[in-house]
């Protein structure tokens, strides 16, 4: 289905999110939409998928003008959108998610639908269990479910919003393969992303948005520096990797085993020294999260000993670890890291014990202002944390972090952030490493991030843990194979 957007304009109060955007996408193409956070990509896609209505402009599908009033309307016209956080019902079964919202008899014929579902997923080599509960699936699998569902409902145009965030490298390969197959069938794929490498690998055409405007289009072979310049208006470059000067022991694990009722990890032995960065790679749910949480004292290991700064903390709780300089940043910023509804200033009051019964608001205001300036947070002391963008929330979390920290443990430190924020977050972290001598352990599903910033890498696969690999001599290919479960015999 050919999609044509003509003169789309959308404002939110004083902000112009989309400014007179013209875009033509032909059937059978994979169109990339590139831009940093806040460039207006999501707004444009929400207009096309019926979530919001444009103030001005036309949408043409196969040359015919359509008015799309709701997402249900959009799917009726054949336009389906896959959201970054798949809009499904986690406690319900895969097949129930598949059925909900589909037209048909009041009591659906489960057998028939399951047969149809399996037939559809076989086309793409998906192996979802129709009876599994969605909350047990990885983000990648939930995406697969949504793609199948949208196709079943007759989607001819598939919009994917940042689909490679939070899925494993292998699932990404599969997703790309699926999208190519769909494009070959004549479907129109719109791929929204801020990841240059993904767009470069996949897209037949790319349109770049900046500050609500369409600044240009490109076709392969792409010149990355050109795309970056269109996205940011200026060129940012990744810094070269530096070699670290290892200090004393920050964390030492001796034959540590961790278990929950699904998985058994270890025994693992590891020595993390000050100023060292260790990346934890693996498909989601391979044990890296359990491992990281054990290092924070949130989960008790079943065997082995754990030493922080040479002190034996085996079996101690989170608060003891915290007192000994172990800080932890969870992946879900709003749920586990910050308090929605509280302002930045209130967060700083909560994080820093001022002493005394009453809160010193003037002092708090000053601290908040210092931290906001120091960490380059776009917000005021009285801004609530949920009003901040993802990058600013992450900076806030960093600013809240206790100093000095001898060990920093992080899940997905830059998930969902644009390139500039990512670079900034890492420059802050690197600073901590070199100035305060912190050691960092971080989980990431972004292999480039792991290779770029780690000194050593641990790979997790179904509870197995690789010996520490030297990041400088490891390639993406090697890492990808290990994550996928190949090449483990060498250890």
């Amino acid at each position, binding site marked *: 289905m050919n999609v044509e957007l003509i003169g789309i304009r959308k404002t939110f109060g004083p902000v112009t999110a989309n400014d007179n955007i013209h875009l033509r996408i032909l059937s059978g193409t994979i169109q990339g939409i590139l831009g940093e956070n806040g460039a207006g990509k999501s707004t444009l896609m929400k207009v096309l998928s019926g979530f919001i209505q444009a103030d001005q402009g036309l949408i043409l599908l196969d040359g015919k003008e359509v008015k799309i009033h709701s997402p*249900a309307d959009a799917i009726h016209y054949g336009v389906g959108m896959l959201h970054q956080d798949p809009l499904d*019902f986690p*406690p319900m079964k895969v097949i129930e998610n598949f059925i909900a919202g589909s037209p048909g008899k009041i009591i659906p014929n489960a057998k028939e639908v399951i047969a149809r579902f399996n037939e559809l997923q076989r086309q793409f080599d998906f192996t979802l269990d129709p009876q599994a509960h969605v909350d047990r699936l990885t983000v990648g699998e939930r995406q697969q479910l949504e793609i199948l569902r949208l196709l079943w409902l007759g989607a001819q145009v598939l919009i994917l919003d940042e689909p490679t965030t939070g899925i494993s490298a292998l699932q990404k390969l599969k997703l790309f393969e699926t999208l190519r197959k769909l494009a070959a069938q004549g479907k129109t794929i719109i791929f929204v992303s801020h990841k240059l490498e993904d767009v470069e690998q996949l897209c037949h055409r790319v349109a770049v948005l900046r500050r609500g405007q369409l600044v240009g289009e490109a076709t392969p072979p792409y010149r990355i520096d050109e795309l970056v310049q269109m996205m940011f208006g200026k060129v940012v470059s990744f810094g070269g990797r530096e070699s670290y000067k290892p200090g004393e022991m920050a964390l030492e694990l001796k034959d540590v085993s961790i278990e929950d009722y699904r998985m058994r990890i270890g025994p693992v032995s590891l020595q993390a020294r000050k100023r060292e960065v260790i990346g934890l790679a693996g498909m989601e749910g391979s044990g890296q999260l359990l491992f990281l949480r054990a290092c924070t004292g949130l989960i008790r290991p079943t065997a082995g000993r754990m030493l922080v700064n040479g002190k034996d903390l085996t079996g101690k709780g989170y608060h003891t670890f915290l007192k000994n300089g172990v800080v932890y940043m969870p992946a879900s910023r709003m749920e586990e890291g910050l308090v929605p509804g509280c302002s930045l200033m209130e967060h700083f009051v909560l994080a820093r014990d001022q002493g005394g019964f009453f809160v010193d608001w003037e002092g708090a205001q000053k601290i908040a202002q210092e931290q906001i300036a120091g960490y380059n947070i776009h917000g005021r002391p009285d801004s609530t944390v949920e009003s901040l963008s993802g990058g600013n929330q992450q900076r806030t979390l960093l600013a809240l972090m206790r100093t000095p920290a001898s060990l920093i443990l992080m899940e997905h430190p830059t998930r969902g952030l644009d390139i500039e924020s990512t670079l900034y977050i890492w420059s802050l972290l690197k600073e901590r490493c070199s100035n305060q001598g912190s050691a960092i352990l971080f989980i990431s599903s972004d292999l480039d991030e792991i290779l770029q910033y780690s000194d050593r890498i641990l790979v997790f696969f179904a509870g197995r843990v690789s010996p520490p690999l030297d990041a400088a001599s490891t390639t993406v290919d090697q890492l990808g194979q290990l994550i996928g479960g190949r090449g483990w015999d060498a250890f």
Partner: protein
Amino acid sequence: MSLETILTGLAGVLAAAAPVIFAAIGETLTERSGVINLSANGKILLAAMAGFAVAVSTNNLLLGCLAGMLIGSLVAAVVAFSSITLRQSQVAVGFVLALMCRDLAYFLGNPYMGLSGPRIPSLPIPILGDLPVIGVIFFRQDILTYLSYILIFAAWIWIFKTRPGLMLQGVGERPAAAFVRGANVNRMRYIYTLVGGALIGLAGPTYSLSVKAGWKGTISGLDGIGWIALAITIFGGWNPLRAAFGAYLFALLQWLGLVLQPSLPGIPSQVLQVAPFPLMILTLLLVNIGNTEWVERVLASLPESARHAIARLIRSLRASPPASLGTPFEQE
């Protein structure tokens, strides 16, 4: 105790559970859509009084029942309007309504205190009612009790087996996702709140025209039933079958309290009267115990085969509230 006493006693338990089932399933439907209606307790009293008053005045039992359902829907409409349209706190509104309706029932019900009124006759089902044991327990009831049997299964099938039911689960779980699938979230919430309210309202006349026929003001013994129904909804994991189990358990415990009294003279009668409440909570807690972390830890130490079976049992019993319960839906 003769066999016959036990059988009629059990039949009485089924009848006594009927209003609790109406209320708990009404609340289940409401909460499944994401709305908490805390007004049940006062609503049941008001509906009981109104149902009795209408039945006495018109000498028409059907009108009495309909009056109770209408009261239930009207009060639910207040909850729905203030929470869905005005986006006010559902808990605060429901709570205030619960207190207000109760006092309103006592006040307005004064003229009907102690009057003798019509009572819904029992309607033994031919053939089935003549079966030994089963017939006496299940099939010599009145029409409302039969209705409660049907409602349990109908509600279960509706929620878990039909397309609209899946969407109902979705609306309570993640309204944004239901919206994307074409649901009109706020309209569905209105409908389920009103229907649920009518069912809760029906619990009133079921008492005043059948289970505890008549209206006796503050000594009617109905105060508290609504709260029990709310608790059963929660412990029942928003599942009609499990809610019904809770209702039957409650009625059974109350009956045991009565019949055991003469044979246990050492125990003060108050203890037996109150016992059903803590016993109820204890049983339902046991059913839901799989949600706790220490259970998982104990499980991890068991041998593989036993762990698997128990883990599956616990998972099937586990229930968490509809994720959007109590939060208004805002479309972008």
